[in-house]
Structure formats: structure tokens, C-alpha cells
């Protein structure tokens, strides 16, 4: 599609600051920014007047420049100017860019872009029903109106080209944003000054459709590449979340899928405070575990210390468990709570074959008289903590990738 230039130069004026010639392309422009000295020149009652500095314009977020042409819904448009705004509230500051575009049919539209909202094409709307900009929650537009979403102050960061209102760096305005209630994804932008209340109605545009409208094949190719990257991130993100789910479930399954090598119950008394269980284990690189359970009942406030040690076939002796079993309850800020611990477990590697001796013993605190304990030895234990750790990491990575892909997607789609 070939897009022809639309607007001839209406008139050439001289910059009142640096005498550089400035070409005015739209008859209704109120501000012309001198390309040489960045002075905002306004068309006042007495002709061209210096209004202030237009500010340092940041690079455009997308390849749309003043002077570019586009064909939008069958009408040829010409990019007249660009403004960068900054809005703020108590917690945040954000920026957005607006391009003023003039159509061959005389219409002047605003193409708006922000990182969070993507592209919207706005047209001016006349408000014919009462609306209090300070407090009303509903904007009376269309059949069902629009819901006011946000009110915030904003200022102009920089401007270039020509604009149909007076604009210079630092000019302030009050913004109101509303979302259409009638479906169709319409957005409303209300600008309030001491002299005027202006309403613009916007329709979302995808970046791909805009690139096509501007007949910019390089931009279109970039979008395709970025879309491919977003798709890849989304795919990898989904894969990471699937892995996390599998790892979580696998942790539970593997943790419970172990073999009992030996199990025995003991009663420990003051006269015989220790008991020994001997178990022959084959050499293995997979961990085994020793688990001790207090079988005796625990009254509120009672506790008992139980220790377990291992005597390896090579006479190495290792203290494995120093458990403090207890039962407690009480009130905290009026809320009843209770807590009971009657189980402890530790893992070891049976790296040599032979007879392992497990000694269970009463500790220093014996709050339960003659406690009954169960000692169990498990082989081929898989520690699920590692799998759950991997699952958490994979889940975080997956969520980040999916959010990244979704942001790219929602910002660019209609």
C-alpha cells in the first residue's frame, strides 16, 4: 500500500527565539516546536510568540515520527506532533506518549501509547450531560456511560512538531480516566484545566495493525520477532510450571515410596533407659532414614527427650536424633492454640554393608514416665525437600516468564 503525503505546508513562520524557519502543516495548530532550539512557539493574537521551552524529547517508544504518514481505516493520516506526559500519584510515576495525527478528511486524532495500556486511538467527544470532574464516578457518554477509574495530576515532559493546544515543558493538567461500560473496550480520557473540560474517546489498537497502517515493514518484522520471543517465553513458562507440579507431586510420591528395613517398639524405663535395634543393611548410595515415634500419650505441658544414635559397621558412632517431644496449648490474643510433637526423623547414607546398631535412649528430660517409642529404619529414601525446592524455583521462573509473555501480549492486542 502506498501512502501519499497528505498535508502541504500551510505557512512558514520564523522562530521568535532563534529565527529558524518553522513550517506549519495544520491550519488549526496552536503550538509549533522549533526543531532548532526546541522553543514552543504559539500562534497568539499578535502572531507567533515564544511560549516556553518544549523540553528534551525522549526517543519514541515505537518508530512513529513527526511527518510519517499512515492509512487508518481507509483514511490517510499525517503525524503532526508528539507529546510525552508524566502522571503521578502517592506511590508511583508513569509516562505515556501521544501523537497528534491529522487526517485527509480533516479529523484530528490522538494516538496514545503507554507501556501498561498499549495503543489507543482517541477522538474528541463533546460532553453534553453533567459530570463533576472532582467526584462523579460515572462519565455520561454513550448509552451505558463509563466508569471513572483514576484521577491524577500530570505534566508535559516534552513536545515536538505541532499541536492543536498550547504546550510547553512543565505545563500541568488534571487527568481523569474512565472505562466504557457498554463493552467494545472503549476508554475515555478527560483533561481538566481552569478554562476547559475535554473528553476523548479511545479504541485500542494492536502494534501489528499500527505497523501495517504506517506501512513500516521493518517495524512489522520487529513485532514478529518480539511476538516469537513472547511465545517462546510463554511456552517455557508453561513447561516450568508443569515441571513444578510434577516435582511437587513427585516429592510426595518419592518421599512416601520407601521400604521398611526394620521396626520395633520399646519401653524405656529409668532402670533401662536405652534400647538397641540391630539391622543388616546393604551398601547403598541412596539415603536411609531412622524415625522415632513417641507412642505414649502426652498430657498438656508434658515433654520427653528421646535420643537416637547409630553405630556403623566400622565402629563409627553418630548421634542422629536429639528429639524434644512435647504437647502444649494456651491462648494467644484470645485465640486458643495447641501444638504436639511426637515424631522425629533423620537420614544417613549406609555406604558400607553390615550390621548397624540403632540405640534409642531417654534424654535428660523425662516428663513422661516409662515412655513407649517406635523405632523404624527405612531404606531407599528420597528426600522430597530437594524436589520441592526445585519445584518452587521452577514455579517462580514459570510465573515470571508467563507474566512477561502476557504483558507483551496484552499491551499489543486490540
Amino acid at each position: 500500500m502506498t501512502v501519499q503525503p497528505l498535508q502541504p505546508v500551510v505557512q512558514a513562520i520564523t522562530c521568535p527565539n532563534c529565527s529558524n524557519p518553522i513550517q506549519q502543516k495544520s491550519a488549526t495548530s496552536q503550538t509549533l516546536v522549533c526543531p532548532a532550539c526546541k522553543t514552543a512557539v504559539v500562534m497568539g493574537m499578535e502572531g507567533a510568540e515564544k511560549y516556553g521551552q518544549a523540553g528534551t524529547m525522549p526517543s519514541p517508544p515505537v518508530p512513529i515520527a513527526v511527518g510519517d504518514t499512515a492509512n487508518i481505516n481507509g483514511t490517510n493520516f499525517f503525524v503532526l506532533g508528539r507529546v510525552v506526559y508524566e502522571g503521578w500519584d502517592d506511590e508511583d510515576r508513569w509516562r505515556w506518549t501521544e501523537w497528534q495525527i491529522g487526517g485527509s478528511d480533516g479529523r484530528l486524532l490522538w494516538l496514545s501509547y503507554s507501556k501498561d495500556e498499549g495503543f489507543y486511538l482517541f477522538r474528541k467527544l463533546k460532553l453534553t450531560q453533567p459530570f463533576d470532574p472532582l467526584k462523579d464516578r460515572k462519565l455520561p457518554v454513550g448509552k451505558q456511560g463509563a466508569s471513572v477509574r483514576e484521577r491524577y495530576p500530570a505534566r508535559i515532559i516534552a513536545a515536538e512538531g505541532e499541536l492543536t493546544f498550547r504546550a510547553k515543558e512543565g505545563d500541568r493538567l488534571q487527568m481523569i480516566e474512565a472505562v466504557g461500560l457498554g463493552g467494545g473496550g472503549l476508554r475515555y480520557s478527560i483533561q481538566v484545566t481552569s478554562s476547559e473540560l475535554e473528553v476523548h474517546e479511545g479504541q485500542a489498537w494492536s502494534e501489528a495493525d499500527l505497523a501495517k497502517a504506517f506501512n513500516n515493514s521493518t517495524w512489522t518484522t520487529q513485532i514478529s520477532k518480539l511476538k516469537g520471543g513472547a511465545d517462546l517465553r510463554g511456552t517455557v513458562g508453561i513447561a516450568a510450571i508443569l515441571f513444578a507440579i510434577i516435582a511437587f507431586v513427585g516429592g510426595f510420591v518419592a518421599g512416601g515410596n520407601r521400604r521398611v528395613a526394620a521396626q520395633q517398639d520399646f519401653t524405656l524405663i529409668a532402670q533401662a533407659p536405652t534400647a538397641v535395634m540391630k539391622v543388616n543393611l546393604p551398601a547403598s548410595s541412596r539415603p536411609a532414614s531412622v524415625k522415632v515415634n513417641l507412642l505414649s500419650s502426652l498430657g498438656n505441658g508434658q515433654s520427653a527427650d528421646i535420643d537416637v544414635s547409630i553405630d556403623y559397621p566400622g565402629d563409627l558412632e553418630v548421634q542422629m536424633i536429639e528429639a524434644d517431644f512435647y504437647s502444649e496449648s494456651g491462648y494467644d490474643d484470645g485465640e486458643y492454640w495447641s501444638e504436639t510433637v511426637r515424631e522425629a526423623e533423620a537420614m544417613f547414607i549406609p555406604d558400607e554393608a553390615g550390621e548397624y546398631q540403632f540405640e534409642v535412649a531417654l534424654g535428660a528430660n523425662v516428663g513422661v514416665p516409662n515412655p513407649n517409642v517406635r523405632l523404624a529404619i527405612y531404606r531407599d529414601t528420597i528426600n522430597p525437600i530437594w524436589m520441592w525446592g526445585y519445584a518452587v524455583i521452577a514455579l517462580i521462573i514459570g510465573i515470571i516468564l508467563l507474566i512477561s509473555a502476557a504483558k507483551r501480549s496484552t499491551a499489543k492486542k486490540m
Partner: protein
Amino acid sequence: MRQMTCASCGASLEVENQFIRAVTCKFCNSSYTIQGDTGLNLTGKGNSLANYPSRLSVGMGGAIRGRSFTVLGRIRYVYDAGFWEEWQIAWTDQAPPDWLEEDEGYWTLYKRERVKGAVPAYDQVRIGGSVAINQHNVFITEKRTAKVGGSEGQFSSVFPLNGTFGYIQGGANNKSVSINYWEDEIELSVGDELEPSEITFN
């Protein structure tokens, strides 16, 4: 159509119909009010209008919702932040002339309406407030002062070439409403915003 002569430069002045009350000489920008059948009263010399390209020009025709019109005149108002233009149009069906105003490419067709009751003072009106004028409860969206920056052609009303005036604009029941507070007159206009497809130009 009547032919008159500019007292200032001798050029021929055309007066389209009986509704015309003022005319501007396109050669010397002298402005006149029309008195009786032949009289012209010089009210002053206005500024010439820059030859901006527009979809309208004095003398050209078009149609609004299928109703044909001819452009009789153009007047430019300037205010502290810019200017706007209004076009006086004559209907080919001989109805009284109306006004066309363009705002960011969208057209509004205004009809003058006689003020039938009290109008709030300009100083009492605020942006975002509402005022009752005739049967309209007008929601105010704009309030400024302006002056006539220039004119060309023929007009159904007389406007001062010098001095500023206050104006307010707003909406009421899906109509656009504009009130000009001239020194000796309050002028009320009620308009319909046109869809782009509702206006065509020859």
C-alpha cells in the same frame, strides 16, 4: 441577491438574501452593517484572514444530511490559547442561515436561538457546573474570553470588530450549546454534532 458597492474601495458587494445583516469586502476588509434595501454602514476594517487551506471556503457548497448549503462567510475568533473559525452557511431551501463550526475535524451545526429568560452572568459560570438557559440545562465544558480576529463574506448577525467578549460552551441533552456574552447582547447557539458521513462538500 442584491449588489452593493464598498464605500471604501468601490468593489462590488453581494448580499445573498434577506437574512444578511453584515458584509465584509473581500478586497479591503471593510465591514458594513446593512441598513434597509441599499444602505451600508461602515463599522470598521477587520484583519484579513490568512489563506489557510480548509475543506470549506466562502462560495463553495455542500450538503448536511442531504440538505444543500452554500458558504456565505467565515469569521475567526481568537483567544489566549489559539483560535477557532465559524462558517456562515445559507440553505438552498431559503431557510435562515446557520453556522458551522469545526473542532478537531468534527463539525457542529449551530442554530441561533432567541434568549427567552434570564441568563447567568458570565462571572457566575464555572467549568463543570450547570446553568439553565431557555429550556436547556447546560453543562459547562469551556469558559474563555475571545475577540474577533478577522472575517470574510456575509453574515446574518452583526459582531463587533474590536474588544473582547466572554463565551461559554457546553452541552445539554445531546446538543452543543454556545453562549457569547457580547457587550450589548447575549447570543445563544444550539448545535448538533455531525457524524463525518453526514456532511459532504462539493
